[in-house]
């Protein structure tokens, strides 16, 4: 035991120059890591799968904001999310089967606007034009509160070089025509093309 300890001690105790080297190495390593971090441009990949007015907001708000922060952003629109890339946006919202959605008056005195109207499913499902009315009310609320329209957010995304990519399979599946969509789409791709982008992203979100 003693012999082993004696043999090891000269090696384990760092020599003066070794310690200096170690210190320098640590310092340089920290500097280099800090430099790499400072130079790194964050990136985000979002998968957008829903085409209703409420679910159109998260991907566009996050994408536009990240782009404003200087991030590289890609959004992959698939299934009903593809609707968000149409030239003519006519997005609707359905309170039916959407129990967390507050039903509130966009106009009138404040006490009235504060009321969350509990509307029976039977009424929401049975009254013709109920969704149209709910959509109109939501759009009015968005406008009153100074929230951007989806059209505005989308053009801000394009202006800030957010890559909007579209799912080719969805077009084929629903017999759509590429002509129905905005020409600024960066590419018509599939999962195999988007995943490598997502793999290298710092932030990946599914909406």
């Amino acid at each position, binding site marked *: 035991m003693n012999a082993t300890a004696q043999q090891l001690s000269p090696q384990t105790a760092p020599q003066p120059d070794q310690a200096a080297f170690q210190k320098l190495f640590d310092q340089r390593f920290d500097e280099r890591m800090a430099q790499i971090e400072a130079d790194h441009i964050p990136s985000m990949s979002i998968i957008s799968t829903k085409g209703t007015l409420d679910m159109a907001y998260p991907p566009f708000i996050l994408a*536009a*904001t990240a782009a*404003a922060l*200087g991030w590289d952003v890609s959004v992959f629109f698939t299934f009903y999310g593809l609707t968000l890339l149409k030239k003519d946006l006519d997005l609707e919202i359905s309170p039916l089967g959407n129990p967390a959605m507050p039903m509130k008056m966009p106009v009138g005195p404040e006490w009235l606007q504060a009321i969350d109207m509990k509307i029976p499913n039977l009424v929401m499902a049975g009254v013709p034009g109920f969704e149209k009315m709910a959509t109109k009310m939501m759009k009015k609320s968005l406008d009153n509160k*100074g*929230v951007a329209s989806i059209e505005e957010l989308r053009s801000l995304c394009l202006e*800030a070089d957010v890559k909007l990519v579209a799912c080719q399979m969805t077009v084929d599946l629903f017999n759509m025509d590429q002509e129905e969509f905005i020409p600024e789409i960066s590419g018509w791709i599939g999962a195999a093309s988007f995943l490598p982008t997502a793999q290298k992203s710092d932030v990946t979100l599914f909406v």
Partner: protein
Amino acid sequence: MTTATPATTLDARGLNCPLPILRTRKALTAMASGEALLVQSTDPGSVKDIESFCSQTSNELLSASNEDGEFQFVIRKS
């Protein structure tokens, strides 16, 4: 040192998240390095957002004030 007197004013009052940030970015893009931008806003969320925006984009937040729910930020472009 360049002067901190804002060369440009951005009126983002009445706009909600994320528009004040997006408009700020747009306004800064058109400005020269070292110039200051005055941003006016009424969105309480913009206080944290402008701070975060400045630290992420390395633009300097020179001042932030709140007068009766109206916020004013002075940002110097990096």
